[in-house]
């Protein structure tokens, strides 16, 4: 703690790098690791979409390592502050660490400056973390998040997707990442309607996740035996709110009901 020549910026990641390098996640080290990594948790479908009141992010709860279940109720959708959500896909360890670091980064900036970052600033902060992870991604520990939130200055919901190099692309409608994302995107392509209500958005999300879980072995569906349901979070002018398990269960039963073969 140095008063005169200590770090004076607003970035928590830079603070760690300059003042506490031993604590900073140094992904560049991964580039030199020889040999193969042990199987880490992978496999996912997460989706993000814009609807009338803002943005919605949803994800399944299954983590797999190779052909085995690693965890049945993992969290893939994180509230990174009161007006932003991040969904993770890829290697669970670095991805969860990234979500944690991002949340601290937003809070740190807000406390130092007295003002929160703009939503676009938050999306760019995440792009830098993804880019820093590139050496690890080359070793197989890819993290490809989705980021969404409510832009209070503009009064709209916004959605971004990322690629492993730190590329950042804003989406007008929806997107999905993870092993089952191709099926979720196909599903959303048909069901998506701009300016949908909360109920319609929830239905689109559950349909897409059900489609993904149906076709992709790495994506978990609804586990009624254990009472594990996908996570669905909404971000609006009023902050963040989650759909309850009961609500999701009801929508899920409606979706199945509409798809059931006659006589079965």
């Amino acid at each position, binding site marked *: *703690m140095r*008063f005169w020549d*200590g*770090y*004076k910026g607003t970035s*928590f990641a830079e*603070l*760690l790098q300059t*003042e*506490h390098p031993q*604590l900073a996640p140094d992904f560049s080290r991964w580039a030199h690791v020889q040999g193969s990594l042990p199987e880490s948790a992978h496999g996912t479908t997460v989706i993000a979409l814009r609807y009338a009141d803002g943005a919605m992010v949803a994800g399944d709860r299954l983590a797999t390592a190779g052909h085995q279940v690693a965890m049945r109720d993992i969290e893939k959708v994180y509230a990174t502050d009161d007006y932003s959500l991040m969904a993770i896909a890829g290697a669970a360890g670095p991805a969860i660490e990234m979500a944690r670091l991002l949340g*601290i980064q937003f*809070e*740190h900036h807000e*406390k*130092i400056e*007295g003002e929160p970052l703009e939503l676009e600033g938050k999306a760019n902060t995440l792009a830098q973390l993804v880019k820093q992870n590139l050496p690890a991604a080359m070793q197989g520990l890819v993290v490809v998040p989705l980021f969404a939130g409510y832009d209070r200055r503009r009064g709209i919901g916004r959605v971004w997707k990322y690629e492993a190099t730190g590329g950042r692309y804003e989406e007008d409608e929806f997107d999905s990442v993870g092993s089952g994302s191709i099926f979720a995107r196909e599903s959303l392509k048909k069901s998506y309607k701009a300016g949908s209500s909360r109920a319609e958005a929830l239905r689109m999300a559950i349909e897409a996740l059900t489609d993904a879980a149906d076709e992709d072995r790495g994506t978990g569906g609804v586990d009624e035996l254990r009472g594990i349901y996908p996570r669905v979070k909404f971000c609006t002018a009023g902050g963040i709110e989650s759909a309850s398990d009961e609500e999701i269960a009801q929508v899920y039963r409606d979706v199945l009901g509409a798809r059931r073969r006659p006589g079965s």
Partner: protein
Amino acid sequence: MSFPFYVNPEQMTQDKAEFARKGIARGRSIVTLLYEGGVVLVAENPTRLNKLGEVYDRIAFAGVGKFSEFDRLRKMGVQWADVEGYRFSRDDVRGKALANVYGQIVGEEFTRSMKPFEVEIVVAEVGDPDMAHPEPDGLFKVGFDGTVSDHEDFCVIGGSVDNLQNHLQSNYRPGLSLAEALRLGRDTLQRAENGTPDLPAESLEVCTLDRSRSGRRFERLSKDRIRELLA
């Protein structure tokens, strides 16, 4: 080889203390007090440069004196708290430890540099009622020479402290509502030698650490909310 002039350490310490006191007395005061819901911090501050700030989930900062000095100290407190919380856990970030960190920094500057910091700081903390063994609510004062002191009920920093302290001594009682505590805070500030009579809401900066909130308990009250509470 040249030798520095001999200076009597007692004389030097006195001179530095007098210098720091003068600097602090020029500014307006801050009153911090416990109320039924947690801690309320009340500053006379008509400007938009804040004297009160959030440090961590249950910790707030108040500073008087030279703005550039106490604001840098506030930011260092945020840095310390966020690193500590990242390194260990959110529950491991404690007000007493932060007050000691401040004591070290301010005390070292007082001893080693020509010009001491012209600042006084309060570190306020509320306990977490969801825990089986919550920390007690607390107010820690850090003086310009790095002295750390622990205060129950209330703490005043800035100029004409004795005057204000006496007023609080005879009017404070435990379990005040937020409105009562805020009114007492404002009435106290009005008694300062350089204070303004009939302080309007526009000239007050008020923040709370509200125990009943979850997560980050710090809240900056809007002018409308202050007006409503003072009405």
